[in-house]
């Protein structure tokens, strides 16, 4: 069999029709395919009958051309019938539209979060050192963690006296300096003067490390933050080994810290790793931060996780220092979000009733599948509200403020709590206003009765399903006989009153 014959064979023609059928809206696909297959049968036989008078190849090509025309028809069907189906599906009040809106909001807030550098940093997980037992030693506990409290002389004495508590201990002191980053180019950077073992204690891997041969042994080494590397060095991967002038002192770039690694106080742009000789030259009263890697045997296991150490002075008094875990020190935005979610769940019953109303049990009307679908829709709404609120609160709080800013954390908490409370409230309220069968929003609210005749007759608001599945009665004043909203199914005798513009959902009678 030649390739030409194979291409124009009947199975290939059927395959072309099957392929074209994929473009046809599912509801019309079977009928469309049946029509085209029936016509193909006739075309095929017609060509076979005429093969005596015409060349066979020409006839085969006709069959293929006929089948390829199916694509035009399928595309027309998709553009017209498909669009009308989609239009119906995404009508105002439809569950599809609600879901699409929430997904769009979630994606938009997430993309904005990725675009804003501060918010993007807040999205990242805590650096590895946070979980590895690194603590910040502070004389005033957690509250003083944002200002340097430890004197250099104390750090020097702990290096030897506290070996039984820590496997490694490092010191850094924030300073602000004009830095000449290139010829005729200077920048005001937040620097930190640190001991050379700082990154070993933090266990942070450095990127863009230079070759050992290019490093000059007598020059101070500088580690850049990822943000400073991007901003001042245009993310140049060859930056390692370059020389900077820091307040008249030359230093060589030794690497770039990992993304989101530095979430410690003061938003440092670069760390100058000084040798012991330079540190010894600093005044003994210079204050800075002290980080330490704790020894498993150094502190008692269990408890609340709060650790402290006591240092005896020469005059007999003792000073107490808190060892604040970095994981505890750096409140990750996600934990703040979880906390506000808990608060919002507590506050929710005070703002809106939790029950979704009374729905009479009629197996023929509301199948188990529809009941599950209704609850799944509520769950989907809530699960989409969570990322919308989380990412939006990150955008709002950390878009312009640094991660360690207390103001940013308060903004995140307030935005997150308000967003969650109103979001969850909306989800419940929206669910109560939807038809339990087709999940569309109920329409045509009508006031019924008078409040002054409350004891004589029912009064409240009635809403109706646009497809005619039922009516919702919402009492104006909750009474002992009608305390919450009630759903009433309409039987098939009502169907003539409703248009058939909506698609009847599967599972309805």
């Amino acid at each position, binding site marked *: 069999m030649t390739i030409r014959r194979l291409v124009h064979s009947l199975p290939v023609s059927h395959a072309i029709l099957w392929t074209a059928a994929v473009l046809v809206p599912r509801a019309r696909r079977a009928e469309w395919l049946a029509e085209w297959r029936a016509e193909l049968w006739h075309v095929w036989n017609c060509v076979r009958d005429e093969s005596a008078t015409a060349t066979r190849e020409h006839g085969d090509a006709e069959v293929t051309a*006929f089948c*390829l025309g199916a694509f*035009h028809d399928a595309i*027309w069907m998709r553009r017209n019938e498909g669009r009308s189906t989609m239009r119906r599906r995404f009508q105002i009040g439809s569950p599809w539209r609600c879901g699409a809106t929430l997904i769009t909001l979630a994606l938009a807030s997430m993309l904005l979060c990725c675009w804003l550098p501060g918010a993007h940093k807040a999205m990242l997980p805590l650096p590895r050192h946070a979980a590895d037992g690194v603590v910040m030693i502070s004389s005033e506990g957690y509250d003083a963690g944002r200002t340097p409290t430890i004197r250099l002389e104390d750090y020097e004495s702990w290096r030897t006296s506290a070996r039984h508590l820590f496997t490694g201990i490092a010191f850094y002191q924030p300073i602000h300096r004009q830095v000449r980053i290139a010829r005729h180019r200077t920048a005001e950077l937040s620097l930190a003067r640190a001991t050379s073992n700082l990154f070993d204690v933090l266990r942070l891997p450095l990127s863009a490390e230079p070759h050992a041969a290019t490093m000059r042994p007598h020059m101070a080494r500088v580690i850049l933050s990822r943000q400073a590397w991007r901003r001042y060095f245009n993310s140049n991967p060859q930056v390692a080994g370059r020389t900077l002038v820091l307040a008249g002192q030359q230093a060589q770039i030794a690497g770039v810290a990992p993304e989101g690694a530095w979430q410690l106080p003061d938003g440092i742009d670069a760390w100058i790793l000084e040798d012991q000789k330079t540190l010894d030259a600093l005044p003994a009263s210079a204050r800075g931060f002290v980080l330490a890697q704790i020894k498993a045997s150094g502190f008692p296991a269990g408890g609340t996780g709060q650790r402290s150490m006591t240092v005896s002075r020469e005059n007999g008094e003792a000073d107490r220092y808190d060892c604040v875990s970095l994981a505890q020190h750096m409140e990750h935005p996600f934990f703040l979000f979880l906390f506000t979610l808990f608060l919002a769940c507590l506050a929710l019953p005070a703002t809106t009733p939790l029950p979704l109303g009374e729905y009479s049990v009629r197996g023929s009307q509301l199948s188990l599948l529809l009941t599950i679908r209704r609850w799944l829709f509520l769950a989907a709404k809530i699960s989409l509200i969570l990322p919308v609120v989380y990412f939006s609160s990150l955008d709002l709080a950390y878009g312009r403020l640094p991660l360690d800013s207390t103001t940013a954390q308060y903004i995140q908490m307030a935005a997150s709590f308000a967003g969650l409370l109103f979001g969850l409230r909306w989800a419940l309220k929206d669910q109560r206003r939807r038809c339990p069968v087709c999940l569309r929003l109920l329409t045509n609210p009508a006031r019924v009765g008078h409040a002054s005749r409350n004891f004589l007759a029912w009064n409240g608001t009635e809403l109706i399903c646009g497809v005619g599945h039922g009516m919702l009665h919402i009492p104006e004043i909750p009474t002992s006989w009608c305390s919450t909203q009630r759903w009433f199914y309409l039987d098939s005798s009502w169907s003539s009153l409703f248009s058939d513009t909506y698609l009847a959902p599967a599972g309805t009678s």
Partner: protein
Amino acid sequence: MPVMAIEPKLSHTAAMILQAINAGQVYGFSVMEMTGLPSGTVYPAMRRLERDGLIVSKWEQQAIADAEQRPLRKYYKLTRAGHGALEAVHKRYPLLEKLIPSAEVKRV
């Protein structure tokens, strides 16, 4: 103020298809053969005519297809609005009737 009937503006292709169906070519393939138009033109045009209410499609009876040992076919016929539109088309394209002579519609 007199009320004027709105006549659908049909293209020449649609007019030919309408005329072919009126002439008794009730299947898509037979319309193709009569008009010489390709399948990619005929079928979408027939869908448009059906959407506009000028023709209506129906599946033939199973017994007919079984008797002839072939798959069930879908046939098309003009609606009342289709006949009205065709009359207007004849005025617009006078040669159309000569090109495809009208015949008694076959009973399917």
